[in-house]
């Protein structure tokens, strides 16, 4: 049984990899139908393997470590391509392959008729391979390979519409900003290596106790830098909203459900190191709490349907970080899973709206779509309720668990930040729903004519995701703190309920959470359904604050001013320095030699030639003429070189004998 599981583990990334190779090399030779069948079929097979592995791990509770081959071996640096599948990895594997499969199927409809159809699926499959390596690796380097791999695919897919300049810029920005985080991650890897002489998780965590508190803090903070980059947390969050230039299924898969949660995975995986450093933990918590609040405020005023969802993703990732920072690892993983369901649902429904409106993304030009595209409307509403945090839908359970943990562990400031963020989340999501689906239509006539419900191939995956968004929370995490997921992950993240709060307290906190969510809904209802004028009035009265939010606190402009422009100027300055100073010195030395050669020519003419009275003038003339093309000097150079050579040998000999 164990052998079979090992085999299944090895097979999980193989299917998408094969699809990448076949579609990537031969994709242009055959029809789109074969290409997409290969693509989603391979992910489907991976999902089946995952289910097989998962049931085995769940039944036996045994983690599997499988070595594929030795990759790098140099000195005491030995790195294998090897997998570790434990309950934590299983949780991510299910989300990645399961949600990934649904999004692949959806993409068949969404990308229909696009020019780069096969290219799209090749990149998507490559993403799956990378993401699987990321969560399955048994050491830091395999994690890093996957880490960079998903970054690459993100880059390629954001830049999918390559003839759009904005897409190309967004792609480069995503990669370069991520690289800043990656540099931090690399430092963390090297720190682990010099402290433990190994990079395998099991060996590192087994001797993690030897780590000095300072070193633990250093490693944890460097890891955090990496996580911040990948999960778009403050202050490296700016790439994610721009990443919405990619096709919508990409936004759903990479920039909502899977890749951006890699930072959370990394922190949970390394919780043994984080646990040693209270300072690093509080950094994680405050980065998360700060981002949750910060991104939510921006989400309040954005007008692009995908950008609202993007900021909401940044904000929700903040909740996950917050959870990690206060030690609620299971709750964070729980939120990763429910978020994957409802955010994928929201993005794909948004894609369905955009599809219906022939590419329109501005919510100011939507409205009244609820009866034109009824299925999409219902699905989007389910997603909205789930993220707003109303029971019994999925988002309520996971978000409430993080917030309750914060409160019962006396992180009141963090709880406050999370609560305000939750109010805003509920508000901006219902605002989005109202502006998109209710009220009078603000579409132009041409778009309105073409509004149509999406095909079944797109709606069915949405139905599955909607189902998961409704019951996922109950299945995974009910009752709170004692759900199935807690038991499953317990052996990995440890903990459990060491700080039991009273049932009354739990119920009270739940009630508060529900009130917050309803308040947000009510406010949105009032502003966008009952009295639309009030919203505009508020925007005018607080026009300063409104503009700051609309421009995302001018962070991009600030970074341009602080980093991008000085970088370019420094480049230009160094370019001048290189050409004028360094090369100037080189040319100066050249000129000196030239003078020396002229001098020797003069000497030759007036002393040697005259003295010996040789008829060498013709020769000299030729040399002077030849000098115009520089090569006439060569015999002089040669003479100087030989003379200098003997001099130098002499000098060094003398020195050596002294």
């Amino acid at each position, binding site marked *: 049984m164990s052998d079979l599981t090992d085999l299944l583990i090895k097979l999980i990334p193989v299917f998408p990899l094969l699809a990448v190779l076949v579609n990537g090399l031969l994709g242009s030779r055959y029809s789109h139908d074969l290409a997409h069948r290969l693509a989603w079929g391979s992910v489907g097979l991976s999902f089946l393997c995952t289910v097989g592995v998962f049931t085995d791990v769940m039944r036996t509770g045994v983690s599997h470590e499988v070595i594929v081959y030795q990759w790098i071996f*140099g*000195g005491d640096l030995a790195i294998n391509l090897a997998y570790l599948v434990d309950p934590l990895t299983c949780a991510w594997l299910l989300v990645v392959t399961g949600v990934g499969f649904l999004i692949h199927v959806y993409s068949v409809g969404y990308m229909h008729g696009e020019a780069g159809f096969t290219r799209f699926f090749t990149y998507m499959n490559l993403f799956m391979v990378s993401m699987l390596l990321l969560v399955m690796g048994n050491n830091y380097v395999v994690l890093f390979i996957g880490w960079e*791999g998903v970054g690459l695919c993100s880059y390629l897919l954001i830049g999918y519409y390559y*003839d759009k*300049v904005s897409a190309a810029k967004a792609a*480069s920005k995503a990669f370069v900003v991520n*690289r800043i985080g990656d540099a931090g991650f690399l430092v963390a890897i090297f720190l682990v290596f010099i402290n433990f002489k190994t990079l395998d998780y099991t060996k590192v965590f087994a001797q993690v106790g030897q780590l000095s508190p300072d070193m633990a803090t250093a490693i944890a903070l460097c890891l955090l830098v990496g996580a911040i980059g990948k999960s778009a947390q403050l202050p490296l969050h700016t790439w994610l909203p721009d990443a919405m230039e990619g096709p919508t299924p990409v936004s759903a898969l990479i920039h909502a459900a899977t890749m951006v949660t890699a930072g959370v995975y990394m922190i949970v995986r390394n919780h043994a190191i984080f646990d040693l450093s209270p300072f690093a933990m509080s950094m994680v918590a405050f980065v998360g709490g700060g981002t949750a609040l910060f991104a939510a405020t921006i989400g309040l005023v954005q007008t692009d349907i995908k950008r609202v969802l993007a900021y909401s993703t940044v904000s929700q990732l903040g909740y996950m970080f917050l959870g990690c920072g206060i030690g609620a690892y299971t709750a964070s993983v729980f939120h990763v899973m429910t978020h994957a369901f409802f955010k994928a649902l929201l993005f794909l429904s948004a894609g369905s709206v955009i599809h219906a409106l022939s590419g329109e993304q501005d919510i100011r030009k939507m409205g009244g779509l609820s009866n034109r595209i009824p299925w999409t409307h219902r699905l989007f509403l389910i997603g909205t309720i789930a993220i707003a945090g109303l029971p019994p839908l999925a988002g309520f359970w996971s978000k409430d668990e993080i917030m309750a943990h914060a409160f019962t562990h006396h992180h009141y400031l963090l709880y406050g930040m999370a609560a305000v963020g939750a109010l805003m989340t509920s508000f901006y999501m219902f605002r989005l729903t109202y502006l998109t689906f209710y009220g009078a239509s603000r579409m132009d006539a041409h778009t309105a004519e073409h509004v149509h419900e999406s095909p079944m191939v797109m709606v069915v995956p949405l139905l599955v995701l909607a189902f998961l968004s409704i019951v996922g929370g109950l299945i995974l995490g009910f009752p709170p703190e004692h759900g199935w997921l807690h038991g499953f992950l317990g052996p990995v993240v440890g903990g459990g309920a060491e700080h039991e709060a009273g049932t009354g307290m739990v119920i009270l906190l739940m009630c508060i959470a529900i009130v917050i969510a309803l308040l947000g809904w009510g406010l949105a209802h009032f502003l966008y359904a009952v009295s639309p004028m009030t919203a505009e009035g508020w925007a005018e009265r607080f026009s300063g604050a409104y503009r700051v939010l609309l421009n995302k606190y001018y962070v991009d402009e600030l970074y341009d001013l602080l980093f991008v422009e000085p970088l370019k100027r420094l480049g230009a300055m*160094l*370019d001048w320095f290189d050409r004028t100073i360094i090369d100037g010195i080189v040319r100066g030395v050249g000129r000196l030699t030239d003078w020396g050669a002229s001098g020797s020519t003069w000497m030759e003419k007036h002393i040697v030639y005259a003295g010996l009275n040789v008829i060498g003038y013709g020769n000299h003339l030729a040399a002077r003429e030849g000098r115009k093309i*520089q090569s006439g000097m060569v015999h002089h150079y040669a003479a100087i070189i030989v003379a200098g050579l003997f001099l130098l040998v002499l000098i060094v000999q003398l020195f050596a004998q002294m």
Partner: protein
Amino acid sequence: MTGFPWLTVLVVLPLAGAIAVFAANERSIKVTALAVAVANLLISLPLWWLFDASSGEMQFVESARWIPSLSINYRLGLDGISLPLVLMTTVLMPLCILISWHSIEIRMRSFMAMLLIMESAMIGVFTALDFVLFYVFWEAMLIPMYLLIGIWGGPNRLYAAIKFLLYTLAGSVLLLVAILVLYFQGGQTFDILQLSQGTYSHSLQFWLFLAFFAAFAVKVPMFPFHTWLPDAHVEAPTAGSVILASVLLKMGTYGFLRFSLPMLPDASQAFTPVMVVLSIVAIIYGAYMALAQSDLKKLIAYSSVSHMGFVTLGLFMFNIQGIEGAVMQMVNHGITTGGLFLCVGMIYERTHSRQIADNTGLTKPMPRYATFLVIFSLSSLGLPGTNSFVGEFMILAGAFLWSKIATAFALLGIILAAAYLLWMVQRVAFGVPDPHILPKLRDVNLREMITVVPLVVLIFVIGIFPNPILTRMHPSVEKVIARVFPPAAEHASVIPRMTPFTPSVERITAPTGPMFSQETKTASEGRP
């Protein structure tokens, strides 16, 4: 070994090929040259399997007396360090010939002959075991390269060619001085292996290191001796650029590894802080410079300065990771930067411009070309799964053992590499092409495919299976490290750590005092 003179054949065959090219009739020039280069590649391939990976000794050694009165011998050999470099050279040469198929308009005969003479000299440099023989090959490379730039180069070719020649010649002269001094100090021999076993006084090592440094640092090129490189690259024809970047630059780092480290271990240690600082300056400076360029060739030339900074950084770490990473990176840079120059050559053939601004939006009209460009760029910026990641990761791991601050600066180079390469890709591959150039933009043809596909394959094969190269390298690299840190003096597995930066200045200036006193002793001992 097997008795077959593998290395002599590898050195002589291209030379004979050059003669054959001169003798061939007009129509068969290119085919002859290509056949010779491919034959050389095929002959070199078995060495990979015949090579005994468990041994750090020279293999396939051939020896013959040359000038007995001065004990100069013809000796060739191959170890784990030179093997990958020789193979890289033989793989690249057919590609260089193929990419020049149509782009060379004048004197095709001489051009092909020069390429083949280059190949002889380059393989000679990597395999020579006699210092005089080495120097002959070393200088022999200059002339064909000078002519490649000076005859077949761009508008400013004469300036670039002279600059290249004089610059490298100046360094070579000092190398010759060092060789002669070593001959007299090391027991009247030019045998490289024997010289690598000798011990030399500290002061002698100090001066010899400087002389070696002059020759090798110019070739690498290390900051601030790099300004010949952009000029030479911009003016050189594509094949010239590829040879220059892929093989010639490696001569410098190979020299450091083959001569400076084992022959002058104490000086190498003493100079480490200088070398590290220069390497890191090169990494960051080269990256910034690349960011500022609007000419594709200049951009890649400066990226070479940056990448070679990683190699010199790794070499002077004196640990397995650093040195093996450095050798890996020498090979990787050859493959990847060679590929990038091939890409620039292809686009120049079409639009007759190397300016980024003139070549935009190439993905739509030339999808295959864009794919190759992106793959080479990603390899160049060290993406995991490609070859460069392995080398850079090992170098950085090795550097981290030595100094965390140094590594932090080097990491800045990695971020900048992503910035300048992706910015280049963004401008060249993405966007919409200028309608004027659109008719010229036909996609990569079969001949061009053949020139780049082998490199792409190597990028991934080395990236995914680096171990076969590493295992062949281990014993040879361990031997070098054992020279710098004799095993007896080594404390357990701890890699000797040097105090970075501030005290380092003392380390270099300090020898002047004790060095001279010490040297009197050693020198008097050494005298016959």
